[in-house]
């Protein structure tokens, strides 16, 4: 299968990328291309110009900076999977990386590209909701930061302007008493999630301090389970509290019945995975507490 014809540009600087996006209507950024090329081949999307950012300098690397992590726009899933930084307090991110698509796709696809693609089945959208990440965006008028909560408007739709580029995603340091988990049900490796749950918990003197819960594949965007977070925050994480929060997370899910399961089934998966994820995250957070 061939995509429709398009022009191809391979700029070497962020400024050139933004200029190319501004000058050309119907231009689209390509990083790893692991979502864009398939949709171009299937011709469910077409673009006039592909702006390939793989030769742009300065967009790589995962590093600790400004009280958190910065992950550049060309960081591939495989780098996140192997990064010693994405363990312990950032363990949610390492756990997510291991479950994105399949190993071959992880060798090419990027975290920021996944966020920009805004597929509600995307894993990083949920993980970054739970970790309270934000993307740094460059455009013709300079730089701005968009919280991941504000990024996605619907399936494949974002608040990014056509001439803006995500240059990095930032994740605030949640502190040492933090644990995370990403649980995903998939029919086979590389399939889209039937449902998945991202959880990050920071403990504070035996109670839950900060908590983030993001849901994959059960709505028009990745979904923050706000009521579940609110119910847990500040409380002692008893079995009842965890089960209650998981029920609230399931209520926040708005899944569609399809060949991966009925809506009720998916909602139940969210509940069970949320409960398991919270237990894993809390126990990891407590291990960081000592």
């Amino acid at each position, binding site marked *: *299968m*061939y*995509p*429709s*014809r*398009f*022009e*191809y*540009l*391979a*700029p*070497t600087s962020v400024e*050139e990328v933004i200029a*190319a996006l501004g000058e050309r209507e119907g231009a689209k950024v390509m990083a790893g*291309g*692991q979502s864009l*090329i*398939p949709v*171009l*081949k*299937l011709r469910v999307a077409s673009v006039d110009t*592909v702006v*390939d950012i*793989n*030769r742009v300098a300065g967009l790589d690397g995962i590093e600790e900076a400004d009280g958190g992590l910065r992950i550049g726009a060309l960081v591939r899933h495989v780098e996140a999977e192997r990064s010693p930084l994405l363990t312990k307090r950032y363990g949610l991110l390492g756990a997510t990386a291991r479950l994105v*698509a*399949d*190993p*071959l*796709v992880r*060798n*090419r696809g990027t975290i920021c590209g996944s966020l920009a693609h805004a597929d509600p089945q995307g894993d990083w959208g949920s993980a970054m909701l739970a970790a309270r990440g934000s993307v740094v965006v460059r455009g013709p008028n300079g730089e701005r930061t968009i919280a991941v909560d504000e990024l996605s408007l619907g399936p494949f739709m974002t608040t990014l302007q056509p001439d803006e580029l995500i240059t990095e995603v930032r994740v605030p340091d949640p502190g040492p008493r933090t644990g995370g988990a990403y649980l995903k049900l998939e029919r086979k*490796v*590389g399939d889209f999630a039937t449902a998945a749950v991202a959880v990050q918990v920071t403990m504070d003197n035996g109670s839950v301090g900060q908590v983030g819960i993001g849901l994959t594949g059960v709505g028009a965007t990745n979904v923050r389970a706000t009521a579940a977070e609110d119910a847990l925050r500040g409380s002692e994480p008893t079995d009842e509290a965890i089960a209650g929060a998981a029920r609230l997370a399931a209520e926040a899910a708005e899944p569609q019945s399809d060949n991966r399961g009925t809506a009720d089934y998916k909602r139940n998966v969210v509940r069970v995975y949320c409960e398991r994820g919270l237990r894993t995250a809390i126990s990891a957070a407590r291990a960081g507490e000592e």
Partner: protein
Amino acid sequence: MTQLESPTTTGLHTVEVTVNGQARSAQVEARMLLAHFLRQTLGLTGTHIGCDTTSCGACAVLVDGTPVKSCTVLAVQAHGAEITTVEGLAKGGQLHPIQQAFHEEHGLQCGFCTPGMMLTSVAFLKENPSPTDEEIRWALSGQICRCTGYQNIVNAVQAAATTMREA
């Protein structure tokens, strides 16, 4: 910025790559996929196209040593890269240890997925020369085989690992 001719004139881009140690170059359309470039432009038909939807991994090749799905990379993106296809595994009439192992362990039946399986395995064994079966299954989990049930593929990769450790 890489300067490229306007598609209203020719729409072609120069791709210069090293494939299995040989310098190759061609003029291609931007939309040409690496898999088609290898098969049609260079005539290296050992790279198989299975699903064409980034699902099966049959088309896996090594780009600068990293296994990727060549149906999901543009040929023009490979400009400057070193590519290894299944045709590059045997040297001087001698099968590569991974090929020998797939042969001896019956790691294939129809053989369609085999080039991709072997190339991913070669890259994997470079990183992990003494893997567990579980690690092999994880490394190959992006690739589908409809014949073997995978067990003999895992056996073949283990056998190749042993040969390559002793070499």
